[in-house]
């Protein structure tokens, strides 16, 4: 029997670059529908969802505790997440969240 979710799904785009995409089967761009839920989706929930649904290997290179590991820059619609409330930011429809592993080569 189908279990219907009475809350609306939330479509967002999740992108990985700078090498972080290698943790997700080398796929850079993911258009995803986050399952509907009673509370607003915050970045802190998204991180867990990504770990469970997109990360295919070595999750410790993505998450450290409840936040991203040092050296990953998070962008919310092309702005540093620190300008947007970091973990507390409430996701909106069509938001684009980017996880960039900083490069050090030259």
């Amino acid at each position, binding site marked *: 029997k189908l279990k219907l979710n009475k809350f609306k799904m939330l479509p967002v785009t999740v992108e990985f670059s700078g090498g972080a995409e*290698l943790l997700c089967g080398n796929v850079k761009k993911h258009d995803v529908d986050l399952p509907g839920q009673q509370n607003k989706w915050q970045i802190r929930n998204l991180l867990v969802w990504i770990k469970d649904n997109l990360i295919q290997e070595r999750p410790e*290179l993505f998450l450290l505790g409840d936040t991203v590991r040092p050296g990953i820059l998070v962008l919310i619609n092309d702005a540093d997440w620190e300008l947007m409330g970091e973990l507390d930011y409430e996701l909106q429809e069509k938001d684009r969240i980017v996880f*960039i592993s*900083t490069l*050090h080569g*030259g």
Partner: protein
Amino acid sequence: NLGPVANLTKGDIERYSRQLILPEFGVKGQVKLQSTSVLIVGAGGLGCPAAVYLAAAGIGRLGVVDYDEVELSNLHRQILHTSDRVGLSKSLSIVRSCYRLNSNVEYVPYHLQLSSENALGIIKQYDIVLDATDNVATRYLLNDACVLAQKPLVSGSALRFEGQLTVYNNNGGPCYRCLFPQPPPPESVTNCSEGGVIGVVPGIIGSMQALEAIKIASGIGSSYNQRMLLFDALDGTFRSVKLRPRSPACIVCGNDPSITQLVDYVQFCGSAASDKDQELSVL
């Protein structure tokens, strides 16, 4: 009306004529450029294009720091070196190539590894610093030294098909530590030896570093204070993103800094300042 030419020789005017006639640059920009000194740390894939375009434009003094010698595997991206210079000091090799293009620039090759002991003494002699290095420890060292010496740091990096560029410690923008208070876990760090890189990617990022240094030096100002350029060569896209401002709580550039002299960066990062000796890692 091109403004005063007092400081430009007849040879200068001919050599730089194509940039002198730009109203946004002009004689004023050229004179400022010629009285500016730039230090490039790293004579590799980023340092080569950065050095040659700064030299061509007529920067006053150009210092180039690298402890390494030219290797055959450098030559697919490090375009100022030559096959017959394999084994020669990289900083010297860059200076030799730039000198042939423009001998009016004062060149200072430093064949040494930048360290907590020597960094401040060198950096203090320059107006603008370019981070063209290839490892995390030197990037933190260079950041802290630039904060302590109050110099803008034009930072570039490249790996595989991607490049990143920003300017740290300039005009209220963040420093490297504001953005990354903690170093990445060593097993998450990949360098060009392990990860590979398409040679022209550092070519483009290093050229952008030269451009931003020229804009700072000539008084135009940088477009990458508190902004970062992300380049993906596979799909040919550039993206410019907004960064946080300087953090008042930053331990080196904040209001009450706890780092007031250079520390041990190899220990801090858990990795050595070399792109050669690390084990293979995933990203």
